Every structure is written in C-alpha cells, then in structure tokens.
C-alpha cells in the first residue's frame, strides 16, 4: 500500500472518530420530558465519550497519530467503561498498536469505582534471536507480524485526595502473564479555560514477554503535560510534551530494536467530549 493511500485511510478514520464525538446524542430528556419531577429522571442512562487524546506526534519520524478514547454508558452506580488506545504511523502502513478495554464498573465509595473486564491488545511482534537482555550487543531483533492477546483486567477508576484522577489496572494475559499499569493526571487551572494537565503512566510486568519487547519488573515511566484551551468545555485544542523512559530489560530490548531508552515527544491535538 502506498504511503499516500495509507495516510488517507488514517485521516479518514480520524475524521470518523471526530464525527462520532460531535454528533448530537439522542435527546436524553425527550422521553423523560413528560415525567414527573424526580420520578424517572434520576435513572436516565447516559453515554459519555471523551477523546482524551486525538493527537499528532509532531517530532517523531513516522508522524504517528495517537488516539485515546474513554467512554462510559450507564447510570450513577453501574457503568460500562470502554477504553481505546492506539497509535498508528501516518507515513507507513503496518505496525501500529491498539488496545481496547471493556470493563464493568461499580461505584463502591464516593470517589472510586471498581472495574473488571477484558482487554484486547494488538501490536507488532518481534522475532528474537537468543539474547541477553542485559547486553543488547548479543543479538539483533526484527519486527515480525503481529501479536494479539486477550487479557483479563481488574482495577479502579477514581479520584484520589488532591483531585488526582487515578486508574490502576491489573492485567492477566491469556498466557498467564501478569502486568500492572497505573495512569494518573491532574488539572491545573491557569485561567478558567487555560488548563495544564500533567500526567504520568507507569507500566510494570511480572513476567517478561519478549515478543512485544516487555521485560519483567518496571517497564517504563512516561510523564507529560498537555496544555489545553477550553474554547468550549467540550472542545479544547492542546499542545503537549512527554518523556518516555524505558527501564531495565525493557529498555535493553528496545535498544535491540534500534529504539532509544528515552523518547521525548511533542504533540498537538484535540480533547473532545460529549
């Protein structure tokens, strides 16, 4: 596939996502409009879709598009959470990675939901020659097809003291590999509309999964900040910076693929919700 048509495909799917977000939701109150006060309106099922990230990594050689969607459908106490995260190069086809979570969530304390469900994760597989992860000079590794895994996921979605949004998720793959990811972010208001959002993501694994370049122990820590301007609450362009730091065996494997231990990224994107 040529680069051009591939880029067109990527742009098209981005537009579809944006259109989905901007389409007016079914008028929730239409059927509740005639209801008595307090009678049924407190049970309305709502749908929330947030494109937390819809961004281009401006300074990466492949100019990847990065998408992170968070959505829920449900009421006050029980919700179905859907999370999608993906990255795709706009310059070449193939590669790219995507993970989708479907989680049942239940509010267990005023600020915390317990969530449990599954994840599908797909990403490029790496073919590895025997290698000493501590010594990257002992072998070369090459990309080789894709690896798709199913995983069980349990965790929490909540708001920690100090207004930190925290999402720890424990994952068990179909091979029995156990890993943990923790995401946290925070809103810092410079004005009522100019908001800086520092964030952190930490990944750790119990077992190494060399096919996807994951070593055991702490894999990586990524910190970043996005500065958004809420033209409307639901429509906020942003610019961001982030720094990914791979650690331990994971860093060694990345090195084997010709990737760097630390990657700095500059991004520009949109935060949209409805």
């Amino acid at each position, binding site marked *: 596939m040529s680069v051009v048509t591939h880029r067109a495909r990527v742009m098209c799917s981005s537009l579809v996502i944006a259109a989905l977000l901007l389409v007016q*939701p079914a*008028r*929730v*109150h*239409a059927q*509740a*409009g*005639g*209801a*008595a*006060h*307090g*009678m*049924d*309106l*407190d*049970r309305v099922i*709502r749908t*929330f879709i947030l494109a937390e990230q819809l961004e281009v990594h401006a300074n990466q050689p492949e100019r990847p598009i990065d998408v992170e969607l968070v959505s829920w459908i449900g009421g*006050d*106490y029980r919700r179905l959470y859907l999370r999608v995260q993906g990255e795709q190069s706009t310059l070449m086809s193939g590669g790219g990675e995507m993970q989708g979570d479907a989680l049942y969530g239940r*509010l*267990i*304390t*005023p*600020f915390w939901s317990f969530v449990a469900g599954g994840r599908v994760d797909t990403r490029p597989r790496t073919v590895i020659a025997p290698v000493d992860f501590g010594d990257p000079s002992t072998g070369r590794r090459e990309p080789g097809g894709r690896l798709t895994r199913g995983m069980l996921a349990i965790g929490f979605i909540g*708001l920690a*003291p*100090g*207004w930190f949004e925290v999402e720890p998720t424990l994952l068990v793959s179909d091979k029995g590999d156990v890993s943990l990811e923790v995401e946290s972010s925070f809103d*810092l*208001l*410079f*004005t*009522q*509309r100019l908001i800086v959002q520092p964030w952190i993501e930490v990944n750790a694994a119990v077992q190494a999964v060399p096919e996807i370049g994951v070593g055991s122990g702490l894999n990586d820590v990524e910190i970043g900040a996005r500065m958004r301007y809420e033209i409307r*609450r639901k429509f906020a362009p942003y610019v961001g910076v982030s720094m990914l730091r791979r650690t331990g065996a994971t860093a060694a494997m990345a090195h084997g693929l010709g990737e760097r231990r630390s990657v700095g990224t500059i991004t520009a994107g949109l935060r949209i*919700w409805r």
Partner: protein
Amino acid sequence: MERSFTDGVVTHPVTRRRFLHAAGAVGALAGLQRLAPAYALPASDRGAGRAALAGVSGRDTRVDLIIDRTPFGFGGRRSVATTINGSVPGPLLRFREGERATIHVTNRLREDTSIHWHGLLVPNAMDGVPGVNFPGIHPGQTFVYDFPLRQYGTYWYHSHSGFQEQLGHYGPLIIDPSEPEPFQYDREYVVMLSDWSFEDPGKILDNLKKQSAYYNFQRRTVGDFFRDVDRNGLRATIADRWEWGKMRMTPTDISDVTGSTYTYLLNGLPPAANWTGLFRAGERVRLRFINAGAGSYFDVRIPGLEMTLVQASGQHVQPVAFDEFRIEIAQTFDVIVKPTEDRAYTIFAESMDRSGYARGTLAPRAGMSAEIPRRRPRPTLNMVDMGMAMGMGGHEGMSMPGMDMSGTGTASKPGADASMPGMDMPAAATKPAAAAASGHAGHDMSSMPGVTASGGAGVFEGQLRDGTIIRASNLRAPGTIPEPVMHGNNTHGSASAGTAMETRSRLSEPGAGLGEDGWRVLVWTDVKRLTPAETFEPPVREIELHLTGNMERYMWSINGIKFSDARDPIPLKHGERIRLTIVNDTMMAHPMHLHGVFMELENGHGPECPYVHTINVKPAERVSLLATPVDPGPWAFHCHVLFHMDVGMFRVFHVSEPGGPMTTEGEARS
C-alpha cells in the same frame, strides 16, 4: 367584569384566536420582550400603581390557562419557551381569601404538563405533582383545578413536569386577605426573579452529570494560589488547598448552573430591558418578590432604599428593616420601600455566586435608570460550610489552618486557631435532649426490617428503609433552635461525598458572601410571625432527614438514597404535631419545600416562629420545623433546585386519613 387580557389577569375563557391576538398586542407594545406579561410591560404602557396588579374576585371566577410552546428570546437570540397563555412568566392570578378558585388548564404541548400552586394549602388531588397527586395533564387534555382559598399572601405557580419550569412555565399568584392588612402602601408590584438559558435544560443536566463543574467558571486558579501565598503564607495556602483537595471539593462551588449559561430575568425581562415600576416621591411601594429561579438564589438590594419585610412565604410578619436580603429559590418576600427622592432606584438582584444579575428600576417617570452597582467578588465556602466542626479539640478535622470562623466566609484567615475553645459542643451533647437527638441513629437500627412500631398507637419510632430517622418525641421546647450535633457514623454510602461532621443552626447567618458589606442583611432569626400562636404545642414525633450529594457524579439524594430507590412514603398521622429536622450533609445550599402544609420555622422565637413553605438549608446546617399536617394523602417534599430534585433529592410524605391508620412502608406506591 371584563378586563382586557393585557391586564395580565384572565377573567374569562380565552379562545386561542383571541389569546393570540392579545399576545400579539403585548408583543407590539413591549418591543424588546414580546412575551412579557402585563405587569412586565414598560411603565408607560401600564396602569399606575395598584391598577397594574388589579385582580379578579368573585365566586364564579373562572380562569383559563393554556400551556403551549411559544417563541421566546432577547438580545438577538431566539428560542422556544413553555408558556402559560403565551407569556413568560405566566399571567398574574389574583384571588381573594375565602373564595374558590376554578382554573381550567389546557395542555397544548406534545408532552404531559401540570401546575403546582406553590405554598397553597389545597386538597391533595389539586396539588398538581404528577405521579404523586394525579397522573399529570396529557397532551390535548384540560384539567380543572378547583379548590377553596384558605389563606392570603403572595405565592406563585409552576410546572411540576420535566424541565418545564426552567423553560418559562411559572407565574405569580396573589390572594388578597379577607381582613385588612396591618400595613399601608400606595402601590404594589410583583418582582418575579428567574433564570433563563438558551441551552436545552436536558442538555444542561447532561453536562452536569458528565462534568459537575461544567458551568463553574470561577474555580480557583494558579493565580489565586499565589495571591493566597502572598496573603496567608505558603504553608497555610498549601494546607488549605490540601484540605479541599482531600475532600475533592472546591470552595467556589456555590451554584452549579451559573451566569455562564443563565440570563437572570426580572418579570421575564433581561437586565438590558430594565423593567420599571413607577412611583411618586413619598409613596409607600409594596414589592412582592418571588424567586421563580430553577437554580438561582438572588441577593436583592435597592441602593438608597431601606426595605421593610411585611410578609414571608405569604404570611404576615412583624416588620423588620434591612438593606439586603437573600431570596431562596421558591421563596416569596413582600417588602415595603418608601422612595422619598424624585429619582430612579435600581432593584439589583445579584445571583448568589455573582456570575450575573437581574435588574429593574423604581422610577418617578418611565425611561429613567439609576447606576447599576458593581458586582461583588464571588464568595467562597469555608470549612464551617463543610461541617468541619468547631470546638472538638483533637479531632482530625480541627487540624486545619485557614479555617474561617466568621461563618460568612470569604477568604481563609491564616493561622486561625483551629482548636476554638469558644464553642461548647461537648456540654451541649451531655444534655439529655441533645443526646437524644445526637448524631444519627446510624447503623444502630439499620438491622431492623422496615419500620419498628412502638407505642401501640401506630406511632413509628426507628428508622425507615430509606434511612429517615423517626423519634417518638424530643425534649427540646417547641420553637427553639436545634443544638449543634455531631454526625454519627452513617456516612450515607457512595451517594454522599464528604458528610458534614457537625451540623448546627445557621439561621442567624446571612450565608456565603453576604453580611460583610457594612449594611444590614435579613437573616431568618429576624423574622417573627405577626400574631403569636395561641396554642403552640410541643411535637410528639421528630422526623430527621439528611440531605446528601456526590458532586463528582452530580448525584443528589436524601439519606444517601435517591427518590427512585426510595419510593416508600414517609408516614405522617393526620393532625399530629411533628418536628421535621432537615440536616444538610452537603456543601451546597438546598431550598427544601414540603407541599400541603405550612411549617413553623424553629428560629428561637417560640410562638412567634414564622410560617414557611420553603426553607433554605445552608451547607452543614441543621434546621427544624414544626408542622401539623391535616390534609390527607401523599405530599411531595423536595429540593427546589430543579436539577437536584430531578436527580433524586425528593421524597413523598403520606398523611393518613383522619382517624385512619398511618401508611406503612410498601403501601401507597404509585
């Protein structure tokens, strides 16, 4: 007997053609505001003084009200309102005490509608709450409200269906007393305050459900942080931020729907339209203030004029003079002013969170206006508002620097001594009465299925399934102010974030952002009934409800349970004397309204306690009211913030038939 429609009072059946004709005439006259009802027309087009509010009387009075959708807008923006006889607000209805009202309400909408007569003591079937008193008025139907007028005063009426109240479905209602009034005045005007949004109210609620701070554009910023550091020091500022952050709450959370989407209206007119009431210097002008806001409290003043309260909730009170008052949602206050100068005066009704204002003018001639005062800075809540108790040395909640002991709260004061020896909480708690009322029965009784009956005579004592606490009696004398009470260990579950540790009476406080401007502000402890009660019995039962909320998910409830999860009514016995204690465990104010009965607000004045139909309960406040329910049937009880009610801060009280048994749980479900 015929009056023209533009008098604002309907005296005869109105055909649609005739109604449209009249509405058109109003539009032509009003210019800016084509839906303005008669009392909101520019002063020159309106009869002067009393004539402008002239009403109808007579036993055979029949009123026709038509509920419809009508184009509405101002400032170049257009929308559609849910209107009564084509205007926003609806027409002024005026009756005389002792007569009978017959009101035909026709629904021309595509959805159900209803009218509730706010504050009126009517037979249960006439109260107008769909699903509680009647099924509602279906599209195309005409429902006939027919009830005796057993009281006098200023009231209002509004839809109790869906979001119609937010869309313009409300109007003023005056009942002239059969006895002469104990005060004199030369002119009178209705001043109906409300809030209008060009956003769909369903959308507003949806936005709040997804991001509760959606309309709050007054949150604390990085700049505020450095200003506080300058003023209070780094440590105190960080400690203050941490205290709020620990609770995941913000001190700027005053109103959840604000001027960022609301335009505040006075008699249906935006500030630019400048509603004007005429007077001649030296006259006494009676202003009948009604807060018909769906979600807005107003702080009202008329710079240069002292106001004298003569009626509250429609009932005579001992005159009390002041310069500003906060009118809670759904409340009515009648005040008299006496402008002596030949100049214009601004009626300035600032929204409680200072995000906007409604405005009108009192003037000797049409077309005049006075200076519009500058809006004050937004108020902030303090740790007292959060129920972080005073006088509990050693408690975790007391380690807070920056606590503001004034209770009226603006900025936190640095280094305030948190251990506050002044407050004598423990002593109060040792009194038997306070001990009986102390805290929350909490889990002590939660093991009981449903209600525990004791006393044999059908007097419930214990805790209802929805957490409502019922006590057989209370030793506190009637009419006295409740003691501060520590909250028990029942924190009402995940629907309730940040339960107030201690709740206290705050009737003597003007409320957040008021009382520090150097002028007098009306507080509820100032208000006394005009004629003391002849008999003032102590209550035989006390019913305690806790107002709860989780702002993070925009959940509002009572006892941590929203209405749809607690459909069982709270049983009341016909003719019994009850004490209703409302405890606000949230950080927002809630105007609570009980239908079908007047409540006597226990503000420390014994038999002179004023009657109310709606009472604001401030954050961390404990309010008690006495009532003797007489009219049998199910009666709505709810927060009058429209969206709080809609998402679950609502209950039904069921009054038994005379001599009949009380409703038990599980019965009378609709």
